[in-house]
């Protein structure tokens, strides 16, 4: 079909494929092939320099029945994902605030959005400093206010490490969510609120009955992006805690990294990756289904 573009339609199709091709190639080489390779690898024994051998479900059995670290990482990932609903709630609050006719609202919008484009590694380093027990700003402020006597080593503490990392993650993504929700808010016609005001709906009725339902697609877009971000927050964890102390902040993604590059267990890491992939796929599908299959779309009748 590419080679004999006889009709106009064929030529058009060939042209479309030509334009798609570079993107498809990237997708193929960096997404599809590694995924398939992972799939094969997860059913094999292999590490660099060793021969390839069929392993069946060996790695999956080990992971599910013998590896406590995997379960810890899975549980931590679930906890870490709570950052998404929290971020969305905060972002919605901020979006409602900066959507008001207040002085300097575009400045607030910019300030809140600013962390998002920052490099995650940089965010991690800044927050590591903020949390530091001897020179960190947070400890300094808490001590100056007399709230604590002893400095807290947030990132080295079993009780605080996870929460601390989540705060940083939330801080970074909130601005992005706010922009998505703000766009959603501004797509809701003002007349709907006016009609509701005359109909007798008070502010909280309008929020629950009009704003929230009409923001649903935007909210679920945030959910999906948040789920992706929490599965892939490798950089943040790696720079802030490296998964520690112990396994306190170990997520699936950092665990996969360690299995591969610290322990050279590429085959086992591949099996964990496959599990993570399907978990992620399920969550994204569910979120999209809940959004009515149109996450990100604006649900306004013309």
């Amino acid at each position, binding site marked *: 079909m590419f080679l004999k573009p006889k009709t106009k339609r064929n030529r058009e199709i060939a042209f479309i494929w030509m334009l798609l091709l570079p993107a498809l190639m990237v997708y193929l080489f960096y997404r599809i092939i590694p995924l398939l390779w992972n799939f094969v690898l997860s059913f094999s024994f292999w590490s660099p320099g060793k021969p390839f051998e069929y392993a069946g479900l060996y790695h999956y059995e080990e992971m599910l029945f013998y590896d406590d670290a995997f379960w810890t990482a899975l549980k931590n990932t679930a906890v870490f994902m709570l950052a998404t609903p929290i971020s969305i709630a905060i972002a919605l609050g901020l979006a409602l605030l900066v959507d008001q006719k207040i002085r300097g609202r575009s400045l607030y919008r910019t300030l809140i959005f600013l962390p998002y484009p920052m490099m995650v590694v940089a965010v991690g380093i800044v927050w590591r400093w903020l949390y530091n027990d001897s020179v960190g700003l947070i400890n300094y402020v808490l001590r100056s206010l007399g709230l604590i006597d002893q400095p807290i080593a947030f990132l080295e503490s079993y009780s605080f490490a996870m929460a601390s990392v989540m705060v940083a993650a939330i801080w970074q993504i909130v601005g992005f969510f706010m922009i998505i929700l703000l766009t959603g808010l501004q797509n809701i*016609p003002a*007349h*709907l609120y*006016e*009609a*509701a*005001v*005359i*109909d*007798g*709906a*008070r502010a909280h*009725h309008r929020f629950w*009955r*009009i704003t929230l*339902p*009409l923001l649903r697609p935007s909210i679920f877009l945030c959910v999906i992006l948040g789920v992706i971000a929490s599965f892939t927050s490798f950089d943040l964890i790696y720079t802030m805690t490296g998964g520690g102390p112990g396994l306190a902040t170990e997520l699936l993604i950092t665990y996969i990294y360690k299995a591969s590059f610290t322990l050279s267990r590429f085959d086992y890491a591949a099996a964990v990756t496959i599990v993570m992939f399907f978990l992620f796929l399920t969550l994204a599908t569910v979120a999209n289904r809940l959004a009515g299959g149109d996450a990100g779309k604006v*649900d*306004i*009748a*013309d």
Partner: protein
Amino acid sequence: MATVSFRALVKAYGDLEVVHGINLDVEDGEFVVLVGPSGCGKSTSLRMLAGLEDTSGGDILINEKVVNEVAPRDRDVAMVFQDYALYPHMSVFENMAFSLRYRKTPKAEITTRVMEAADILGLEPLLQRRPKQLSGGQRQRVAMGRAIVRKPQVFLFDEPLSNLDAKLRGSMRLEMKKLHRRLGVTTLYVTHDQIEAMTLADRVVVMNNGHIDQVGTPDEVYKSPKTLFVAGFIGSPTMNVLPAIRDADGSVRVGGADGFSIDRSDIPEDAPQNLVFGIRPEEVFVGETILDDKGPVVTAIVDVVEAQGPDTLVFASLGGHDLTIRTRPDVKVKAGDAVQVQLNISRSHLFNKETGRTL
């Protein structure tokens, strides 16, 4: 049942005053149409009445009670918007039930009232649909249904028909009229379409640039416009206007050298010299429609003849001034003809050129 009044009502956005102290009294059960060109302040006035905009001066009264500070929900008015403002995520039923839910109406009563409104508007088969799945005309009905389930004191309509095609607009107009007769609710209706205004209104309010120029029955504003603006705005094709000069002897010279003189010794002494003479196209006679004693006969040159079916429009020029004539289709004139035309003086108008007001 309610009366509505504006008392010296003013609206300003910052330094920009857009409604300049208007006065209006709407009687109980009356259908009043606010009409005027784009930007004259119709919507703004209506929105102040609904409570969607604050007033900048003066008072709004519903049932003789000042409501300036009353919240929209407590004014007991229902409004239909130009874009209908239907809640897109709710079914037709839910759209209509919405306001009742916030007025502590029992469930059974909500259903009864929604079904009642649906019956009046022929919406029963559509109750479970979303607004997206409706045609423009159907959406318009839902918007009306949402207003009538409330049984409000006052209906407010802001150009409710302007998103419909011409034919549908005609039939919806008729339905609105019937609906009003049936429910008898005081109604304020905004439009810039003068045909809508003339056909729907008990009284027409002609607005111009933030002022009310005239309030009157459709017949009054058509036959006795108080200002040049009203004369020009109401009626299609618009009223003919010719320059006129008042002479000392009480006669008025219309249309310059090629025009004619009329005796108007009745107009006051202190009236200005420069006047404007106005006459509707159907009050200008041509050919065999010319009658004795109706008024002066002069010669005009025909530019264009437009046969419209029931009547024919003749666009002519009288001493260099445009003159439109509405006549019977059997009157034979053609472009280029020099024809005799007669102006029905008893149906003509004289305006002060300076102020635009009638003498």
